[in-house]
């Protein structure tokens, strides 16, 4: 996979835009997932995910071929998410509401005229609930938890993406896990 990606990047260096389209196809779900779970809002996540790829393209000359491409890409994505969250916090500091979940979660996007099986509704309600719990975590714990459990990355990779020592990443995951345990234990 990484070899294929590096071949594509060489093609991009030669000006082949289609090769970049392939890269976007490879990584779009993963990058979108990071963004969506970080900010909790689909349209905003889409915006940030697109921005991630555009920045990657513009700065492809700065990517070091000796490193894993996904690490570099996820780093752009998480940085953009954190920037966006900080900006939002500054903009809406007076609203105490949980930000990011307004009317745009998966459950509320399904047209109401189209009744769903009970199980599916229950599943989506659970997903919405879990997403809200995730959003309630401090950003640094949330980021580490998303990279570990949704992207299934190793502690070393997470440490590279977040530019933090492995020990700090572990602490963030432990605290995030513990905070979620307390909130989810009665489910």
């Amino acid at each position, binding site marked *: 996979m990484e070899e294929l990606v590096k071949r594509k990047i060489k093609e991009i*260096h030669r*000006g082949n835009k289609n090769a970049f389209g392939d890269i*976007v196809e490879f990584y*779009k779900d993963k990058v979108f997932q990071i963004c969506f779970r970080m900010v909790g809002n689909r349209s905003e996540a889409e915006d940030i995910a697109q921005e991630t790829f*555009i920045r990657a393209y513009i700065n492809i000359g700065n990517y070091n071929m000796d490193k894993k491409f996904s690490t570099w890409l996820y780093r752009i994505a998480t940085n953009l998410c954190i920037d966006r969250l900080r900006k939002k916090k500054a903009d809406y500091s007076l609203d105490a509401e949980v930000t990011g979940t307004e009317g745009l979660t998966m459950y509320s996007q399904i047209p109401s005229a189209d009744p769903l099986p009970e199980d599916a509704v229950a599943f989506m309600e659970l997903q919405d609930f879990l997403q809200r719990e995730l959003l309630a975590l401090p950003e640094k714990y949330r980021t580490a938890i998303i990279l570990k459990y*949704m992207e299934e990355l190793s502690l070393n990779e997470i440490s590279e993406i977040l530019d933090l020592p492995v020990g700090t990443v572990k602490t963030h995951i432990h605290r995030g896990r513990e905070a979620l345990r307390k909130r*989810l234990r009665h489910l």
Partner: protein
Amino acid sequence: MRQCPDYLYEYMQEFLDGDIPAEHDRVLKEHLRTCKDCRDYFYELKRTEMFIKSLANVHAPDGFTDEVLNRLPKAAKKARLRHWFSHHPFLTAAAIFLLLMSGSTFSAWTDNHEDFSVTKQPDLIIKNDTAIVPEGKTINGDIVVRNGSIRIEGKVDGDVTVINGEKYIASAGEVTGDIQEINQLFEWIWFDIKNKVSQWIKIFDGKSEEEKDFQ
């Protein structure tokens, strides 16, 4: 809630991280066999992991890739150029040099574009925008005509160059050197560069000849 020693909870975290040392693993497992509170606690942590993993089902919206590619072009050119420049410093320098040189050449071409001019030679007749070498006369030396034409009825003992004009040579006309017509900007640039280069060569040769004289 947490009634057992702290290290046991740390061992649980180590277990979940997947890097628990064998000794800690043994101690933890032995403890879990006997302590129901810790078993419950550990079970809650495992369930939390499972819940969070269940969120890993997100897909990018339809048309995502196209949308990204549509937003690229402007950035694309810049990126490619920047990349090219940084990887070809020598060629970049050469390109800038050529660009600057052709810049002055271009302005030389446009500056001279309007005015008719011709090399001054005795016996050369000027009529409107045409220089005429009269029948029976011989002009010793090169003639350059800009933005006009030349009619050669006599003889030119040298080169004739016509820039942005035409040459007519009568049957009795004769040119002993080269005849060149330059109408295109590109040819003009080439001509200008050739001249500059030959000037440099002349200067260089002149110097080396002077050096020889000193010896």
